């Protein structure tokens, strides 16, 4: 590799669009993902707000039933495939994994760029259904057969988009696994890695081993639409339950692709702001692997009501409960980390605490759905919608925002206004809970999901929920506005280590130089969170 002048940081140096979209620098690729992800996230949010507006009052207000079906499908496809599956690994994993390991890039930098390009192509395909063809799919993001085989909307393109996006996910996962195995700095054993790296490691394995199944299943949907051979369509001899199995064999582990990186973020934030070592390092590290492993065998709990033997349901239910154990281990360890710590309350910590609170609600409501008797009542109600938004948005989404506030000074070498950030956080927290908690109640009352209309007795929770969506939207605008303002106008230089963290990224300049370090990073003596023997970080 040619020698590059290194007194410049990664944002300086080459300029222009092409120096970004063809960059093999993991930091630039991380930011490319960030900008794309935030754009798609905002599209998804807009669709969500439209849905909430329609549901403000019973009856048809704003959207046709068919339009509503297409909007909730597109909302799901965008949020899941374009935002939350890539979110933390593609942005913060790409940016910080190599720095935290003390190296200058991922193992396959060009493959990394290819992943981004594949992601963008997939995203364009998914969004193209808005304009071309017979309109976006109206099947729900699960593309359940036989409806997905028969509907006149543009399912083929949506499904192909998901297939292409899967490739991007696989290649990122592959890259991270090899990077973690090959590029740790000397002296950093597996058990001295930051927990974020452990979380990404577990996630990458799921990406690698689960995604191909959805790929081939979606290909079968496409083939079925072209040839109509009766693979999944029962009217011509196919088995729709088989499709559901194949779909969830991927899509349940995918839930952990979304959640595990968030656990990694929280495990970074808490020790830094409590100024003490993480409680139960090994327990947290191995519980990630345990979740990844057990998570592979519980897909059947999505299908308790769609036709499965009693034995099958019983086994899937027990296995589902098993996942609660490693997850609870993490939560207990996080809380124990705060105990007798020297807690510094900054914006990222607020997000981490909100994560723990909301993720616990998400987790416990998940157990109700994993239990056979209650699931019969709750299946396909708003309780499910509330549950997974608590896990995905209240969990992973908040961890994503927390990470953004945590690493903002490192990524751009600027500082945001903390007061505004805290206000935005408060609005997000209140808005989020006002939006989704009533859904749990409406679900318990029996309101089914995926309808543009509902009976009058569900009016109150729906009204509160829609009010919540407005508060949340204001919070989001304030949060992003504050960060964008800081990006353009901030004069404050945060220095190398604004939060007093001791993982390796805090030892380098902000923003980092092109090859990440300007001097040899120093490992703490006993693992990554050893605040007793912390390295002195000079400016």
């Amino acid at each position, binding site marked *: *590799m*040619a020698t590059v002048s290194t007194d410049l940081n990664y944002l300086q140096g080459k300029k222009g669009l092409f120096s970004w979209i063809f960059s093999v620098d993991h930091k630039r690729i991380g930011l490319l993902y960030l900008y794309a992800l935030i754009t798609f996230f905002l599209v998804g949010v807009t669709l969500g707000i439209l849905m909430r507006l329609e549901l403000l009052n019973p009856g048809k207000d704003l959207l046709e039933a068919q339009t509503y079906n297409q909007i909730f499908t597109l909302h799901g496809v965008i949020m899941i495939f374009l935002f939350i599956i890539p979110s933390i690994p593609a942005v913060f994993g790409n940016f910080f994994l190599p720095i935290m390991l*003390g190296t200058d890039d991922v193992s396959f*930098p060009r493959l990394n760029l290819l992943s981004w390009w594949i992601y963008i192509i997939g995203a364009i395909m998914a969004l193209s259904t808005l304009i071309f063809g017979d309109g976006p799919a109206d099947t729900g993001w699960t593309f359940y057969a036989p409806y997905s085989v028969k509907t006149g909307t543009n399912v083929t393109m949506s499904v192909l988009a998901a297939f292409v996006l899967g490739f991007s996910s696989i290649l990122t996962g592959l890259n991270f696994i*090899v990077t973690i*195995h090959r590029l740790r700095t000397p002296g950093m054993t597996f058990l001295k890695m930051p927990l974020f790296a452990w979380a990404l490691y577990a996630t990458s394995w799921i990406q690698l081993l689960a995604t191909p199944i959805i790929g081939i299943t979606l290909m079968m949907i496409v*083939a079925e639409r072209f040839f109509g051979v009766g693979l999944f369509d029962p009217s011509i001899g196919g088995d729709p339950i088989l499709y559901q199995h194949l779909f969830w064999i991927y899509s349940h582990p995918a839930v952990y692709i979304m959640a595990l990186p968030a656990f990694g973020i929280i495990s970074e934030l808490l020790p830094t702001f409590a100024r003490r070592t993480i409680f139960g390092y090994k327990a947290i590290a191995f519980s990630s692997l345990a979740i990844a492993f057990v998570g592979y065998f519980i897909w059947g709990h999505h299908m308790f009501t769609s036709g499965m033997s009693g034995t099958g349901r019983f086994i899937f239910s027990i296995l589902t409960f098993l996942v609660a154990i490693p997850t609870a281990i993490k939560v207990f360890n996080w809380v124990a980390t705060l105990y007798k710590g020297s807690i510094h309350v900054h914006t990222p910590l607020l997000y981490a605490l909100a994560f723990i609170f909301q993720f616990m609600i998400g987790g416990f409501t998940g157990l109700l759905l994993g239990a056979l008797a209650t699931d019969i009542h709750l299946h396909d109600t708003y309780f499910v919608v509330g549950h997974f938004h608590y896990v995905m948005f209240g969990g992973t989404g908040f961890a994503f925002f927390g990470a953004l506030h945590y690493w903002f000074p490192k990524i751009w070498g600027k500082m945001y206004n903390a007061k505004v950030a805290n206000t935005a956080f408060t609005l997000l927290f209140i808005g989020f809970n006002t939006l989704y908690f009533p859904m749990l109640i409406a679900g318990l009352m029996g309101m089914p999901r995926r309808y543009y209309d509902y009976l009058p007795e569900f009016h109150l929770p729906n009204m509160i929920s829609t009010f919540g969506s407005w508060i949340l939207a204001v919070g989001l605008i304030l949060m992003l506005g504050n960060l964008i303002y800081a990006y353009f106008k901030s004069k404050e230089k945060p220095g190398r280590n604004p939060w007093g963290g001791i993982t390796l990224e805090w030892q380098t300049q902000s923003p980092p130089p092109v*090859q990440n*370090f300007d001097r040899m990073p120093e490992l703490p003596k006993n693992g990554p969170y050893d605040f007793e023997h912390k390295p002195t970080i000079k400016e």
Partner: protein
Amino acid sequence: MEHASGFVLPNSGHNRDAEASKMGMWLFLFTELLLFGGLFIVYMVYRMINHEAFLLSSFELDVTMGTINTVVLLVSSMTIAMSITAIQKGNIKLSVNLLYATLAAAIIFMVIKYFEWSSKIHHGLFPGMDYYESLPKGEGLFFYLYFFMTGLHALHIIIGAVIIGVVIYRTKKGLVTSEKYTLTENAGLYWHLVDLIWIYLFPLFYLIH
């Protein structure tokens, strides 16, 4: 990459790392196995439901042609393995010739496949054709899965052939040497996988009675 102050990180993603490349290839092969794994599950489920029909349809396939193709692929796996040994020993010419032999085997396989498929299509057994539509459901599924799975496999043969072509080109240009032969090894790994999948497809469609 070197820092202005002369500081160099010990590990770099921009260094050549043969171990990393091979690890990456192995991980990729896992994903390929799972891709076909989904199809094997579908095959298994429908074979259990439509046992008789699958049995009946399997007699339609030409075991001789299938056997020849199996032998061709096994031989090609051997030639590419020999090519790797040749490059390790520094015999570039032999290595390239063995790669050509592998490439030839890939082409022979595709030609035989072409004749097999066209005879099936000639008999109207391709999904969407009139005769196919008149078949009982189970038999239709058998031929559908036959075309889907062998088709996907054939696509992998084509990709493999292109990769081997690249290896030949780069070896001739002197970019693959006895010290630097990861590319040949990775092509070999991929080719063995393609071979291995056929080893499963062949009995599933042609032989099980």
